[in-house]
């Protein structure tokens, strides 16, 4: 207490003009000195590779020989772009990725909001149980999750088929979930991704819901609003910014899903399972077509930026704040 009160006067006494100038000069270069290491590391490990990636899109590094011997690589203008963009497979992958991502983001947000609302109206012991389960789910590495779910959905000894059989779907015993890529991707992989996404979304939304002032809800109730109306007209508007952020994050994660698809298809996803991340990996790294991969990378980043314009604008605003 006394320290804070005495501070202004002591500072005036203790800092004579010459010394203060010294401090400001050092204060000007010090932050740059502190930033230098991370700027250098990120520029060499991320900035330069990104530039290199964009250059690759205009080159023809499309076999392993050219990868190990870069002197064989030459610039080909927009040739790689036109060959990828005229490939029906590319547009098929883009379409599939966008539809699948929308499905996953929508499902995870809806289920997460339901569970978050549920958390608000159950007894403390039930809340602790559910949150504990969510934390364990959250902690699972995606590679492990994919491996576990492949076993759950196994067609010979998988437990999902057996449970369906037990509850009356006799024909589902030994059902092969992965034979049809549409079923495999839109049902099985979706269930893995939504399962993994729920914990973060539920806990974030639940935290947001507890911030909604109870007086507002009480007032609405007194005025005769039904629980659903209270939710729609009081809770949701207050949650809106949080919903935007969680939706944007879900999009970022689901759009580039790779690990779950990779492990569920045991390291060799069939073409019907290719979303843009898998497609990019197969082209660039499995077939050593780095320039093709670079064009797909550019497309991937452009699509993300287009979808997330509003989110990026939000970030620019964060930069404005102190």
């Amino acid at each position, binding site marked *: 207490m006394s320290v804070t009160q005495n501070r202004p006067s002591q500072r005036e006494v203790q800092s004579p003009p010459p010394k203060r100038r010294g401090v400001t000069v050092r204060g000007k270069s010090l932050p740059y000195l502190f930033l230098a290491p*991370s700027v250098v590391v990120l520029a060499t490990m991320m900035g330069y590779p990104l530039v290199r*990636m964009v250059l690759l899109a205009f080159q023809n590094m499309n076999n392993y020989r050219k990868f190990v011997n870069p002197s064989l690589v030459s610039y080909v203008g927009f040739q790689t772009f036109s060959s990828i963009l005229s490939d029906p497979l590319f547009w098929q992958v883009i379409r599939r990725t966008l539809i699948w991502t929308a499905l996953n983001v929508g499902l995870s947000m809806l289920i997460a909001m339901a569970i978050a609302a549920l958390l608000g109206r159950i007894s403390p012991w039930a809340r602790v149980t559910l949150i504990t389960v969510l934390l364990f789910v959250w902690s699972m590495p*995606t590679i492990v999750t994919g491996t576990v*779910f492949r*076993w759950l959905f196994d067609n010979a000894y998988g437990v999902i088929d057996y449970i369906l059989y037990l509850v009356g779907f006799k024909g589902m015993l030994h059902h092969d979930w992965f034979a049809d890529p549409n079923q495999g991707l839109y049902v099985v992989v979706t269930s893995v991704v939504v399962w993994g996404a729920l914990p973060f979304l539920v806990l974030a939304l639940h935290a947001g819901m507890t911030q909604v002032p109870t007086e507002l809800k009480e007032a609405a109730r007194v005025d005769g609003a039904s629980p659903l109306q209270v939710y729609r007209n009081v809770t949701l508007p207050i949650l809106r910014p949080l919903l935007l952020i969680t939706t944007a994050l879900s999009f970022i994660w689901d759009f580039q899903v790779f690990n779950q698809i990779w492990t569920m298809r045991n390291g060799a996803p069939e073409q019907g399972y290719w979303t843009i991340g898998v497609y990019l990996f197969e082209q660039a790294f499995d077939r050593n077509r780095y320039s093709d991969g670079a064009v797909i990378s550019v497309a991937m980043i452009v699509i993300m930026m287009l979808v997330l314009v509003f989110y990026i604008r939000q970030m620019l605003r964060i930069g404005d704040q102190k």
Partner: protein
Amino acid sequence: MSTYRRAPRRAMTTAFWNTVAMVVSIVLGFPIYWMLLTTVKSNKDLIAQHPTFWPSHWDFSSFSSAMDDNFGANLWNTVVITLGSVAISLVVGLLAALAVARFDFRGRKPFIVAILVVQMVPLVTILVGLLPVLNSANLIGSLLGLILAYLVFTIPFIIWTLRTYIVGIPAELDEAAMVDGCTKAQAFRRVVLPLLAPGLVSTGVFAWIQAWNEFVMARQIMGPAQNKTAMVWLTFFSSTPSHGSDYSGQMAGALIIAAPVIILFTIFQSRLSTGLTAGAVKG
């Protein structure tokens, strides 16, 4: 009167929602339960026509079948790589976080925006350009190559998270220390650092978890068998002819490499959101 009638009804609804919550918990927790259960089931149980929800007898042989020739070496690689990249990025990231949180300088805003935007760029797109770079630097197949590659996501994460922690430590505290005769460096070491320690630990733990779980970079940068990381090991283990249908071995391997993450995550998750300096500047 109305309160008398409402109380039991409210208890009923709570009981109903509690039941729903338990069903949700069981459904969400079931995959983890099944993973644990599979590791202690005997092979005979595993290929039974009707799977059982409890082992007929306990069999831990799955763990020894998971530990094949490469398992130990691969796990050790992961330990070295993750600790290496987290150590480097904590030092580098702490400096940048201090600059952003405690200094006002030209270029501060663009830097913050860059750190935020950079975290959105998919790793796999960076890897397309990074692999040729690492190749010309002769870093493919080396632990150092992967340690450096991981800095791409650990450093932005650490800068952003630590910045929040440092902003939470009132600047009046270090000013007070400097008024009392500390130099800037001393004020940092004696005041800021102790308050920041919990934040440093949990930030480090979460960066470490991300590095531990990373797959795409590890698969492409690290080469042959003994050189893999644990996650890459699991995908190869699961697709070899000898272990492709050895699900108890796969689950045991999955459990071992996930265990450190699960334990640390559940311990530190609750800490991430608690206020650090609550009460530090009380009157």
